[in-house]
């Protein structure tokens, strides 16, 4: 020990250095949740493995069958599964239910896919896109486009030109030849120090080089996202929930012409199926069965009796 380093020297050094940088609480919480999931999966996998090995001991009779079981190779390290493929359209080289491990890449080629992250966030991937799923809250867009419906704030989409951070929202991120572009359908996203809300777009070549513009949160530019949209289970659903789904999937604002119409939508239950209908088409087909009808004009879905 160095005798010269007296208590007052220790005090001076620590004062000189100042406090260590604080860690953002949301970062710590996010990492802790993800690492905890991984740790828990490891613990559970080991428990299962121990159970398998215990079987022949309990049986106490080393039959050939049991020997076969006990001679199984030990389980490989459990991959960290952070997402699952929900829907596939076209010729995407993916299959429904396919698990996606952390850091693995998904390429859609001539098809589209929707992927559900462990936290409930939905990521739809356009054709000819490549996406790397880094963690349950972070994806890297390497080519093409993704449409994100975030289950909570904190999702990040990394692009070669900067990171898009979301604050509870639905948005599309698309890479073009020399820039990235995020269009917000709902909520808020941040790129560098720039924010965009519903109906806004940020185009950027770096977090410091961002151009903001107005865009429509509805219309044909968004249609590809419906191709792999999650199904809406109409059987037994309330009309009001169906209308919310239509609004979410189409980007429309919803207007009820009266409280009576709203109440009717809340009380009425639907039956049947909408198959693969686009949301706006589904609205026009389904609402009349509940004594309601819909008109769509400039991004506003008006519901009348």
């Amino acid at each position, binding site marked *: 020990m160095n005798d010269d380093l007296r208590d007052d020297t220790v005090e001076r050094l*620590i004062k000189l250095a100042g406090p260590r940088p604080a*860690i953002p609480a949301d970062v710590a919480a*996010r990492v802790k949740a993800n690492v905890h999931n991984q740790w828990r999966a490891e613990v559970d996998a080991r428990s299962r493995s121990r159970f398998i090995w215990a079987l022949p001991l309990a049986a106490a009779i080393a039959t050939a069958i049991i020997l076969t079981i006990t001679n199984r190779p030990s389980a490989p*390290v459990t991959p960290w599964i952070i997402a699952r493929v929900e829907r596939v359209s076209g010729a995407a080289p993916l299959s429904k239910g396919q698990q996606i491990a952390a850091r693995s890449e998904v390429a859609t080629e001539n098809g589209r896919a929707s992927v559900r992250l462990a936290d409930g966030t939905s990521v739809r991937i356009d054709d000819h896109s490549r996406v790397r799923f880094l963690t349950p809250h972070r994806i890297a867009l390497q080519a093409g486009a993704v449409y994100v419906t975030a289950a909570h704030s904190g999702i990040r989409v990394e692009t070669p030109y900067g990171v898009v951070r979301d604050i509870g929202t639905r948005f599309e991120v698309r890479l073009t030849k020399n820039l990235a572009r995020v269009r917000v359908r709902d909520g808020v996203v941040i790129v560098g120090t720039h924010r965009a809300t519903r109906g806004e777009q940020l185009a950027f070549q770096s977090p410091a080089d961002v151009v903001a513009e107005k865009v429509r949160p509805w219309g044909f530019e968004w249609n590809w996202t419906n191709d792999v949209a999650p199904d809406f289970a109409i059987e037994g659903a309330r009309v009001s929930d169906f209308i919310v789904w239509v609004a979410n999937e189409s980007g429309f604002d919803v207007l009820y012409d009266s409280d009576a119409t709203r109440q009717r939508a809340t009380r009425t239950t639907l039956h049947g199926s909408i198959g693969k209908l686009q949301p706006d088409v589904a609205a026009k087909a389904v609402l009349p069965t509940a004594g309601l009808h819909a008109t769509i004009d400039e991004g506003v879905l008006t519901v009348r009796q």
Partner: protein
Amino acid sequence: MIVHAEDRALVGRMIAGDERAFDEFFETNFAPMFRFALRRLDGNEDAAEEVVQAALSSAVAKLKTYRGEAALMTWLFTFCRHEIAAWWRRSKREPSTALFADDLTHVEAVLDSLAMSGAESRDTSRLVQSVLDRLPRHYGDVLEWKYIEALSVNEIAARLGIGAKAAESLLTRARNAFREAFTATAEGVLS
């Protein structure tokens, strides 16, 4: 060979599935690892988060390989260094060329033998902060509370939920540990 019995016991509890052990593991190691990564990633917080998460995830998948031959934090920093190198490779950029003292094997060995290790550069502030990060649990905190926040022993005791005598004793141990680690680290850097 020094065996880090406390660390080994903590890892043993984690392998057994003890939730409180996981909390202790995370609360003790996350912040130092994050700052360790942040300094080596040019202050890129996103990258640091990704790297530390990947490092911790790899580590919890390999807990059974931890034998207590190095301090747990030193073992974790090995994963962190690996992930940092991988991050720079993926980003196709060159890491900054700053010298980090705890990347020097002999410094690592000296500090690890003290159940602590660390120091980053010749810059004193970083050196001090790095040493504080690598001290045993609570030591760095109580020293900051005492000397930067100017808390009294009673206030420190209240913050930790312990008695004043225990807090005084903790402060003394923390001061001694800091003195020892800082001296060893500085000598390592300058040698």
